[in-house]
């Protein structure tokens, strides 16, 4: 003990080098790599896309500032506008179908799982499996199943007397988008289910006991106690669904239907439109400036959705301490 006392007084023979406190070099070292990679490969490209959307290419390969000219073309030029509004409309339908099918289904499954039935863990694990699969796989699996060539779907439906209902849904203009949407629901319902399930679990047992003592039935407890408490989670699920429709939906449509959104653009969405515009397809030459414009439009559309959520929805959803 005495050694260290004396060392503290500065008289130690073996006085060690005194390290100083403070300094920020370690903070920089910890942050710099992540911030750099993220800035260069995520934020910079996004800003660059926004910038490119304000330019147009010249025949000599240089670019020229045209202000909002590209947006003007995209929104009002007959050839572009028809594709743009069609794709946006299809995206909104896609979102709508997810909101009325995927999320209620996720809520139902989560609510049932939260009753802690036997084998609940097994159900939960298996229902989540499709979420893990690549859309390439999901796309082809369903294409095969729904294909009139193989006839699995038709065979199954005939087995329960619904054979007359069968149609090659993916190939029909009237049903292709709905069919694709439902495949996407099938694949991703595990995510809202898990999020809602987790939120339901976080509702304290005492609260439910109190409701039971107050004489509420199981259904009433769910509607009047649990649901209000998990509203913030439902809000998050909604905004995630919205963002997902502009990103992951591309993969599915690309792998099932290809980049043209067939039949007759009925499954064309913003993602496929952007891909096609950027890289070109068959008769169309790729145009990075218009591609950037489509991407920027997607960015603004997502931004509008997120803003509506943050300002309009999230504020009104009271988050309760649990």
């Amino acid at each position, binding site marked *: 003990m005495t050694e260290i006392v004396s060392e503290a007084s500065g008289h130690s023979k073996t006085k060690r080098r005194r390290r100083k406190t403070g300094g*920020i070099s370690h*903070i920089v*070292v*910890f*942050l710099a*790599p*992540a*911030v750099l*990679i*993220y800035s*260069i*490969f*995520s934020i*910079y*490209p*996004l800003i*660059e896309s926004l910038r*490119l959307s304000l330019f147009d290419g010249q025949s000599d390969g240089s670019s020229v500032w045209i202000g909002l000219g590209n947006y003007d073309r995209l929104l009002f030029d007959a050839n572009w506008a028809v594709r743009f509004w069609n794709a946006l409309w299809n995206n909104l339908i896609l979102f709508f179908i997810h909101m009325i099918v995927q999320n209620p289904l996720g809520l*139902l*499954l989560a609510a049932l799982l939260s009753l802690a*039935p036997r*084998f609940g863990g097994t159900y939960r*694990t*298996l*229902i*989540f*499996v*499709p979420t*893990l*699969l*690549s*859309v*390439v*796989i*999901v796309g*082809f*699996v369903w294409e095969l199943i729904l294909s009139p060539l193989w006839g*699995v779907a038709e*065979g199954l439906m005939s087995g329960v007397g619904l054979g007359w209902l069968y149609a090659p849904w993916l190939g029909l203009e009237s049903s292709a988008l709905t069919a694709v949407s439902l495949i996407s629901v*099938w694949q991703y319902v595990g995510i809202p289910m*898990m999020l809602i*399930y*987790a*939120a339901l*679990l*976080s509702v304290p047992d005492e609260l439910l006991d109190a409701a039971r003592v107050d004489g509420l039935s199981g259904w009433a407890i769910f509607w009047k106690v649990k649901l209000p408490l998990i509203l913030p*989670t439902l809000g*998050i699920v909604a905004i995630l669904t919205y*963002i997902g429709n*502009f*990103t992951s939906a591309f993969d599915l449509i690309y*792998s099932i239907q290809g980049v043209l959104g067939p039949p007759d653009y009925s499954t064309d969405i913003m993602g496929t439109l952007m891909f096609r515009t*950027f*890289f070109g397809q068959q008769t169309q030459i790729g145009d990075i400036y218009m*591609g950037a414009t489509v*991407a920027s439009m*997607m*960015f603004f559309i*997502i931004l509008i959705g*997120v803003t509506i959520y943050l300002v309009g929805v999230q504020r009104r959803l009271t988050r309760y301490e649990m």
Partner: protein
Amino acid sequence: MSTVDTTRARRGRMGRIGTAAGVHAVLLGYTLIAIFPVLIVVMNSFKNRRGIFTEPLALPGPETFSAEGYATVLTEGNFLLYYGNSLIVTVVSLFLILLLGAMAAHALSEYRFKLNALLSIYMILGIMVPIRLGTVAILQLMVDLNLVNTLISLILVYTAQGLPIAVFILTEFMRTLSRDIKDCARVDGLSEYRIFFEVVVPLIRPVLATVAVFSMIPIWNDLWFPLILASSDATKTVTLGVQQFIGQYTVNWSAVLASLSIAILPVLVLYAIFSRQLISGITAGAVKG
């Protein structure tokens, strides 16, 4: 009095049994819907062409069993190479996401400095804004850096893509870590770097595993960036390889089904191993978020 009680009790019990049956009916029904397509693909991948078409719903029997699809896949497709590519891209990206993400999260949760709040928001922005919207510029950047058709381009993009959510989850978790233990290490004379690697990293190991599983799935399954940045035969990932293989072999159904099964398998195996981790991670994240 007592008869009333027993009636009520019986009605209650019957009600419970009825409810339980309903619950299981719905859950079991949907579980079948969820795994039926996977089962049917894997099942039929072990059949010959006749078996696939005549009785798609039957298990492979002695007359219909065949592994010819797998033979085709293994000889015609370059799947071992694609697997290798996917593995390299996924593992290296994950390593970078976890290491750099944890370092950044540590800085953001541990130290007070001027730009802290701003940087936190900046890093988390990427959760809301999909990285794909920058594809145009990413491709140009990769061309400029001479990285097109390299695995490095994918690794860089996936790292940038995975960082925001990793930083978010890890920061939230690290804020709950006891400050005392880090202070104690400081009193013990550890440098800030050693505190991170020797004290913090062991404490966050379970969350790192969760983030790993989370980030891995979209990387392994991605089609967009392999298609755009690295579609050469030498750099194809499994997902892209399967997609193109199917495109070429549309008529050879057993080969198509076999390639699908081959692509499904590793994900399912990983899921079986990590499912508990994944679910607890989602639970933790959801409670916070």
